[in-house]
Structures are given as C-alpha cells and as structure tokens.
C-alpha cells in the first residue's frame, strides 16, 4: 500500500483503519484483473420443496462455493439444502426461442380441463329415465 494511503488511514475515525500497518509494498491496479469462477446457487427452503435459484457466488471451486453460498444465501432464510453448479455448466433454452414456449394450436387434449363428461352422463341418465317412463 502506498505511503499516502497509510497516512490517510491513520487519520480515519475508524480505529480499525488507524491500526493498519503495512510493509511499504505499493498498491497497483491489475491490468488484467483476475476473477474466480462463478457458481449458481440453488436453495431449498424445506424438505420436499424444489431447490430454487437464488443467485451466484465467486469461488475457486465447488466446495468453496458451497462454503461461501451458505453464508451469503442461507444466513437468514430457513434452509434445508444448498446446491451449487458452475455457471459454465448451465444450459438454457429461452428468450431467443420464446415462441417455442407458446401454445398456438389446440392442445386441450393434454389438459385435465379438456375432458368434460358430466353433460354426457347427465344426458344419458335423462334418456334412460325417459325410456323407462314411456
């Protein structure tokens, strides 16, 4: 850290900074700053529920990602389990192909609501009744 920095910190109202003692290495910005990988974090609130994506962490590997994710994403909310997966390993199908998700043609054959029987049964019952009456 530069001497100027050290002087500045010694006049801080923060006692933690006043105490900083550094060897006179000079702080320099990196031209190509390095970064750990990113991992996506999935959080399960209670057993039986789905794991839900809650964000990401920077970490050198998956195990450290879990150590970090635990405090960044489960320090407050109830948590039963956490998953992490390298962001690079996520494959997505989505926005550019949004039209694929649209249902345009008649697809009620695969919905429960596409099957209505009551009226048929009612009509049948009526017709039987009618026959026996006549």
């Amino acid at each position, binding site marked *: *850290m530069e001497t*100027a*920095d050290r002087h*500045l*910190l010694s*006049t*801080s*109202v*923060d*006692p*933690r*900074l006043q105490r*900083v003692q*550094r060897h006179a*290495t000079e*702080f320099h*910005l*990196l031209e190509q*700053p*390095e*970064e*750990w*990988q*990113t991992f*996506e974090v999935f959080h399960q609130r209670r057993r039986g529920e789905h794991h839900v*994506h*809650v*964000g*990401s*962490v*920077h970490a*050198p*590997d998956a195990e*450290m990602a879990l150590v970090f994710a635990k405090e*960044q994403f489960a320090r*407050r909310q109830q948590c039963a389990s956490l998953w992490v997966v*390298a*962001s*690079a390993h*996520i494959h*997505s199908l*989505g*926005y*550019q192909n949004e039209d694929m998700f649209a249902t345009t043609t008649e697809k009620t054959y695969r919905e429960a609501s596409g099957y209505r029987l009551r009226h048929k049964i009612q009509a049948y019952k009526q017709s039987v009744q009618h026959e026996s009456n006549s």
Partner: protein
Amino acid sequence: MYGGGYVFCEPDVHGQPDDPERLAEFEARIDRGEKIEPQDWMPYEYRRQLIRLIEQHAHSEIMGALPEGAWITRAPGFKRKLALIAKVQDEVGHAQLLYSAAETLGKSRADMVNDLLSGKSKYSNVFNYPAKTWADVTVIGFLIDAAAIVNQVANSKGSYGPYCRALERICYEESFHLKQGYDAFVALATGTKRQREMLQDAINRWYRPIIHFFGPPDNESVHSKQLMRWKVKMASNDEMRNQFLDAYVPKVLELGLTFPDPELRKDPQTGRWHYGDPDWAEFYRVINGDGPCNAERLSARRLAEENGRWIRQAIMNPQQKFTIPFA
C-alpha cells in the same frame, strides 16, 4: 443502499445505432410490463447505462459499509454490536448481489472493482462523510437506510430482471436495517441529555448529505427521459426526496429534534416539501472526488483488495475461465 445521485454516462456518439425493428420490440416488451433478461437483445445505451447504474449501486453498498463499520468495535452493548455487524454484513452482501447482477451484462466484478479503485467509477456521495460519533451510526441506520429504501423500492420495479431480483432480497433486508436504526435512534432521543445532544449534532451534520442523497433537482438532471421510458430510472429525484421527507421528517420532529434548515416545511396546498438551498455545488464537488472522506474510502477499499488479492491468486485454477453468471 444507494440514492438517486446516479451519474449516468453521456450518450455515446460512437455507439452503433440500434436496429429500429428490434428496438421497437424491446420497447414494446417494456411497455407490456415484462422484464428484460440478460440474454435478450437490448439497445446499446440501455446496457451501458444499466451497467453504470448497477455498478454504482454496488460500489455504494461496499463503500456504505465503511462509515458504520467504523463503529463495530465500539458499539455499546450486545444488542447493538450484533445488529451493527449483521447490518454492515448485509451491505457487503448487497454489493455481492449487485455486482453479480451487473456481471450478467458483461462486465466482470474485477473490472468494476478496478474502476472503483482507480476513481473512474462513482458511488453515492453520502458515504464520503465521516461517522464521527455513535449517534451518526443511528442517523445513518435510520434516515439514510430509509432514504435508500425509497430509492430501492422504486428501482425494484424497473425493467432489468437480475437487478429487480437482487433488489427484492435487498429491500427485505433493508427493512431490518431501518428498524434497528430507528430503534438505536430512539434510544438516544429518549435517553440522557448528553445522548440527545449527540443525536441532534449528528442530525445537523447529516441533514445536507441526506438532502443531496436523491441527487440534484429534476430540472438539473440530464438525459433521464429515455432512461425513464426504458424503466432504468424509475422515479424522479424530487419525487423520491419528497416521498422521503414526507414519511420521515415528522418521525424526527415528534421526538423534539430539529433540522438545521429554517426553510424546511411542507406546503399544505401542494403537499410538496420545501427546503433551503442545500448547496448543490458541494454535491458536485464531492461526487467529483473532493469530499471529506473520498480519499480515505478509496484507500480503505484498496486495503481490502490487497487483503484479498494474494488469497485469490493462490487458489486460482488456471484451467477454469470466468463465466458470466446467470444471477
């Protein structure tokens, strides 16, 4: 926490013009109230301004940890000490969430941090003032977090998905910040004579930075029209400031405390608050680096960066490349 003092970039004249058809599609999506996701096509300016906005917000969180952090080792009693550590920790957590949200737009955290440390990036002015006494911590926790909530709730209704998701969690935590801040504030306000004096003194010193918090008056803000149309900027500075004053000035006054501004009053006709000239020249001086603590804040972050660098480098896996997160 972050205010409305955003410094958006000047429109880039060298940027490629946007494909009008895609632009129309993009704007129609925003008009329908749909969110924009990272993989979507977006106008060049939209991406640029959003990176700038979210990055500044992230920097403000991490810088915001410093003034209050100064009192962690001196917080009086277990309850205050634990709450303050948790609160400052949350602010660091907010920075973590926001850097990730900005990363989805293609700028890595390392690059953002570099820009902060070199002085290229801005952050909220309010954190360039020192927290001189314990009472300052209570004023920050109560009033500045309250102001930040007004701003962040507005932003959480914006158009960019990852930013909104981060803000949802942030706003949830901010409500704890406000509560613990108010609690500590009221403890002083209802305490001994010296405690009240300490608090009044802190209010006097923080009043102007708080008025500055939402940024310059609307008639001085440049190019916010397009950003509002794109739901990058969600509410005008004056609107947010008024909303804040309306909600929190009475809460301070009812405790028999005052603000150092004889012109501060609400116009019963219009419902708008009037305040005396807060010296906007000072706002610009501070945002351009010449505030009481700008240099100290930067060197504190340089220290943190230095603390982390050898650790990061020692466990860098050369095979693995940084990937843009989904956030």
